[in-house]
């Protein structure tokens, strides 16, 4: 088991779902590197493919979906796309922790948290179950909970914020160093959200993790992530260091998203809605730029040619208009 933060290299990943209209890509040709020890945030709306991408990290895309192309190389593990059966099951949990949405009931309502913890330990062949419980209690205590009480509780006795922390504990207790958090704060209110984000940051630093946060809320990413990647229609349209992307967004979608957030100060009427609506698996364009229907910078070339991913230092953008403008200047 690797005791340090692993790096992850996703290369040319394509995930397709079988539909009556044939196999349609939910994620198409995505390349993304998670540097060891960083927090990366993926922002996208429903149907952007962000959850499918996250599941690919565990090679857990369920039928009718399948990984059609590409690789997910994790340090100390190898390419998980080729994993199957027992090898895959062991990798999950021990190397990769996954925290599911708090709102969705990912805990078993019939068992106490402690019993579920023991199940987890047994299924991963942990010899020292007492040690596991001790570790869990410490982690929960670290997150501001009474560990013994929480382990004795059923999920209905815990609030949303507490369940979320239990989820984080279960993802980390087997000493995973790569952690994926799927919508960690959806359905939590503001104060609880701020609290959870602080915990994510602190635990990340203390345990030396590589963390991936999936969310629809740019504010969440702004608070925790070092790097930000924006997904739209199954494509990564922009990525870069969080502060740089928020400070000077390049892709028209990123710009539109930021402009669509009402803020507490400044002229509130500067907030503008993005026209149109996000594409679904069926309506996403087969060729050309996936965002063109809603884009204010649309050109003829956008209809036919997929914009290539252009790197400029640490910033990466896939947009014809941005590329043209930069060549001109």
């Amino acid at each position: 088991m690797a005791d340090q933060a692993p790096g992850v290299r996703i290369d040319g990943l394509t995930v397709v779902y079988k539909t009556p209209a044939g196999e349609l890509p939910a994620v198409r040709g995505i390349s993304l590197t998670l540097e060891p020890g960083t927090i990366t945030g993926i922002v996208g709306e429903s149907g952007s493919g962000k959850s499918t991408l996250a599941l690919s990290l565990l090679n857990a895309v369920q039928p009718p979906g399948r990984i059609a192309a590409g690789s997910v190389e994790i340090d100390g593990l190898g390419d998980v796309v080729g994993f199957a059966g027992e090898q895959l099951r062991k990798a999950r949990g021990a190397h990769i922790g996954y925290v599911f949405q708090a709102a969705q009931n990912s805990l078993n309502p019939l068992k106490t948290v402690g019993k579920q913890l023991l199940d987890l330990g047994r299924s991963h062949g942990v010899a020292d179950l007492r040690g596991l419980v001790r570790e869990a209690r410490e982690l929960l205590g670290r997150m501001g909970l009474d560990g013994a009480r929480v382990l004795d509780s059923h999920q209905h006795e815990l609030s949303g914020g507490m369940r979320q922390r239990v989820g984080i504990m279960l993802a980390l207790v087997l000493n995973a160093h790569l952690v994926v958090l799927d919508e960690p704060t959806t359905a939590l209110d503001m104060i609880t959200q701020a609290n959870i984000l602080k915990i994510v940051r602190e635990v990340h630093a203390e345990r030396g993790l590589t963390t991936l946060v999936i969310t629809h809320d740019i504010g969440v990413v702004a608070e925790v992530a070092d790097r930000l990647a924006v997904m739209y229609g199954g494509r990564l349209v922009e990525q870069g260091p969080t502060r740089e992307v928020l400070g000077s967004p390049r892709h028209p979608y990123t710009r539109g998203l930021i402009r669509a957030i009402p803020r507490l100060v400044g002229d509130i009427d500067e907030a503008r809605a993005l026209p149109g609506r996000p594409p679904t698996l069926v309506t996403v364009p087969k060729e050309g730029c996936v965002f063109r229907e809603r884009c204010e910078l649309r050109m003829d070339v956008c209809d036919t040619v997929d914009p290539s991913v252009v790197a400029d230092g640490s910033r990466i953008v896939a947009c014809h208009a941005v590329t043209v403008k930069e060549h001109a200047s």
Partner: protein
Amino acid sequence: MINGTGITKTFKQRGNVLGRREVPALRGVDFEIGKGGSASFIGESGCGKTTLGRIIAGLETYDSGEIEIDGTPMSPLKLKHRQPHFRKIQMIHQDPYSALNPTRTIYQTLQAPLALRAGQTGRSKGWIDERAAEVLSLVGLDPGTVLSRYPHQLSGGMRQRVVIARALTVDPEMLVADEAVSMIDVSLRLGILALLKDLRERLGVSVLFITHDVATARYIGGDGELYVIYRGQVVERGPVDTIIANPVHPYTQSLLSAIPVLHGLELPGEEPVVPLESLTENQSESGCLFAARCPFRGDGCTDERPLLRVTEGVPQEHACYYPQRRSVIARPMSEV
């Protein structure tokens, strides 16, 4: 158009052998929403904001206090006679996916309340069709393409527009929007907010906005009243812009401090307030309800409960013995 005084509501939970547990949801709340005005209730989950919204929409009873709609007190009236008054107030729920009947087309959904009214007022079928198309246009949907569709054929944003259109079929004077955009895609949220704002401006419909996000309340109307609710008590009340600029209650300050900072565009506030502990079920009932979590609690805070009032030097009403302005919200980098 609607005001309430001293509204209380207590929920009784089925308890164990030792008896029932009583949970006070509202502890004597006063409110007032004028014709064409806007108001927002903010607070954590469980603070009572949704209960108050449901009482205002006539979907929930209250234990004591009085609600007047256009000057008519509601409690002396029988349920049957209250209904026409509460019909002026329509609720828009959080989840547009469960608010529409999946087996009905949009036309059928809109036709039902319209047919009822047509029957009452002796109007024709032609009026129903005309009005159905009209309300859809009001919410920015094309009647030609939408009327024959089923809810599953529409996006979340479009469904929420249909829900609003359905509320408009009865010519309401007020809309109660309970977290109306929280389940909608981020790029579409502002469109729904803009629609509510537009309905307020064009049709003179009052809007009551229930949310935990103050910034959206500001978008609907900075001049509207903001009610900060904590454990069933209004702890700060005043115009949205005044409170955002000068929050004095530590609870309001914690809510505002918790809003994510867009690093790169904004700098965090200078004096963020973080509650000492999280909200639990069995918190003290004596003195100030927020005292246990308040980083600034002082003498007397746990003895007697401060009531909502005006004090010198503070433009808005508040319920704190030690009101002090703190700069908690993020500032745009362009202004620094």
